[in-house]
């Protein structure tokens, strides 16, 4: 597989001239001017799915835009990457911002969008600055503005720096944040593709997804398909964090196994550490165990063992940390980041955290295990958005996979591992 999104990472961030010299923006020659229906069809054939974690078919999402959708049409590039353990979009932003712009232009052309907002989390301020400079360069060189490449079509890109909060990554919450409201999710329908930013048709996609688009359109769906392995299409920037020798990001064929990624690419576990489990794609994915290492990490792999690919940000858990402490830390994150709009999430998640802490501190009883399970079942289907269900994915599976540990904690009146509080 060739490196696609990360091809310039070692040299970057490239300025416009250097990017152009490295064949940058070349894809646009075979995209802009081609019939939009053909392009959308090509994208459909490629099987590209949303890399932000949901894995929804990109072309299908785009096809929901009505043929007579009123202008202005907006494209929103979601770079609110805040999923713990995920740092792939950050790499594109910081190491090769022009790749993101090339993708944004190509995607906007297909969608006939008039304006693209690139929504960047506040913690990536330095990256936003780099991107803004790149946008200005693209503008000065005629790739943005009116009548791009004599196509009669024009586009402006607006770099929008947000100010924190994980929930902004939820697409409708993002739209509220962008409009200057609190980032509470909106009810769907209407979906953003019908009524999004300021009531106009709006397509929201993850930054990595958007970056893939021009290469698929220029080189063809078959080429993209050939980049994947084990039945998957394309490449993916996998990330590994935790107690491994070389934590980092690796652009690999989609469908690479967790064993290859953790033990080969990331160098394996630190000396004296043993793998006890891992979350395959960020904090809101279900636990996988060492016996699942050979499952290919693509959209259909982890679901065979009750998990999901998520962002492909693998968080490694090792024998130096108690799984219950691990789960409690995840809940610390989710309780803090709940937007507070609906009760099951706002009040339910802190209750889950409280129960987990009881095990750690030694005040839990057998009844608390039942309460914990029941609580997860009650919260899961009753929240306004996907935040709490996501938050509970590692908890329900963790409770199930490490249930013997819960009993042990009750018996020992707390955690016996050194690293637990």
């Amino acid at each position, binding site marked *: 597989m060739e490196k696609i999104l990360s091809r310039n990472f070692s040299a970057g961030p490239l300025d416009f001239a250097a990017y152009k010299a490295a064949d940058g923006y070349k894809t646009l020659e075979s995209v802009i001017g081609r019939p939009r229906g053909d392009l959308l069809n090509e994208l459909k054939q490629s099987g590209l799915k949303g890399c932000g974690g949901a894995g929804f078919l990109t072309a299908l999402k785009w096809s929901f835009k009505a043929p007579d959708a009123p202008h202005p049409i907006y494209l929103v590039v979601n770079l609110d990457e805040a999923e713990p353990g995920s740092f792939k979009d*950050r790499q594109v932003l910081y190491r090769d911002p022009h790749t993101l712009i090339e993708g944004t232009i190509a995607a906007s052309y297909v969608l006939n969008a008039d304006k693209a907002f690139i929504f960047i989390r506040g913690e990536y301020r330095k990256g936003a600055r780099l991107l803004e400079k790149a946008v200005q360069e693209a503008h000065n060189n005629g790739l943005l503005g009116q009548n791009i490449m004599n196509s009669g079509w024009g586009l402006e890109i607006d770099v929008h*720096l947000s100010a924190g909060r994980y929930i902004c990554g939820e697409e409708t919450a993002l739209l509220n944040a962008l409009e*200057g409201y*609190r980032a509470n999710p909106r009810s769907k329908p209407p979906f953003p593709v019908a009524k999004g930013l300021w009531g106009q048709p709006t397509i929201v996609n993850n930054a990595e997804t958007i970056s893939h688009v021009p290469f698929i359109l220029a080189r063809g769906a078959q080429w993209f398909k050939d980049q994947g392995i084990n039945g998957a299409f394309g490449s993916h920037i996998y990330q590994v964090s935790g107690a491994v020798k070389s934590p980092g990001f690796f652009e690999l064929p989609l469908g690479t196994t967790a064993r290859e990624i953790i033990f080969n690419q990331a160098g394996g576990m630190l000396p004296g550490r043993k793998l006890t489990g891992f979350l395959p794609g960020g904090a809101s994915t279900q636990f996988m165990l060492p016996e699942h290492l050979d499952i290919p990490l693509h959209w259909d792999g982890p679901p065979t063992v009750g998990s999901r690919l998520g962002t492909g940000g693998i968080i490694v858990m090792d024998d130096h940390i108690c799984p219950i402490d691990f789960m409690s830390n995840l809940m610390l994150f989710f309780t803090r980041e709940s937007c507070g709009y609906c009760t099951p999430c706002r009040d339910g998640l802190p209750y889950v955290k409280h129960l987990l802490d009881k095990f750690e501190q030694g005040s839990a009883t057998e009844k608390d295990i039942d309460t914990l399970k029941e609580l997860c079942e009650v919260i899961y289907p009753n929240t306004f958005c996907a935040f709490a269900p996501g938050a509970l994915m590692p908890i329900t599976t963790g409770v199930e996979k490490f249930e013997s540990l819960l009993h042990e904690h009750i018996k020992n009146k707390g955690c016996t591992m050194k690293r637990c509080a």
Partner: protein
Amino acid sequence: MFTEDELEHLREHLSHYPERRAGAIYCLYAVQDKIGYIDDKGIMMVTELTGLSKTQLEELITFFTLLRRRPVGRNVLRICDSISCHVMGSRQVLEAAEAHTGVALGEISRTGSVTILPSICLGLCNHAPAALLNDEDEVSRLTPESVQKLLDELDQQPFQQSATGSQVIATSGHSMLTEGRDH
């Protein structure tokens, strides 16, 4: 608080959205970048610029983590305590940092040099335990010792006024790309 040029730039920025309130965060950042936090005077100014009420602005500031209503130290160090950093020992780093400043997290250190805040995942998981200094500078592979050394260095550092107002803001919009860059 702002020069006439900066005010003009903010008005220009607000006007490039269909609704002015979309630029509220931008204006609040501008105030914060200028004086370190958002004070009452700053709120009143953003009220005039955006047409939002004081309450509506407070609503935004209390929601968005990176906006603050209270003064901070000369530096702000956000130490990640999310899972990847947690498994690599961020709790010990936070404890060491808090002990070094002599005050609780979120308060200004006794020397005035720093405010330490726990932070959600910063996207620096491959450098865990990690932190972000003054919103932009990445601090990698912290240990209780290295964070104390960093805090010592911040104590020694003379205060440098960072660039002010619009110059330090990263967000754009085409109108800003042609305007206000060279002030």
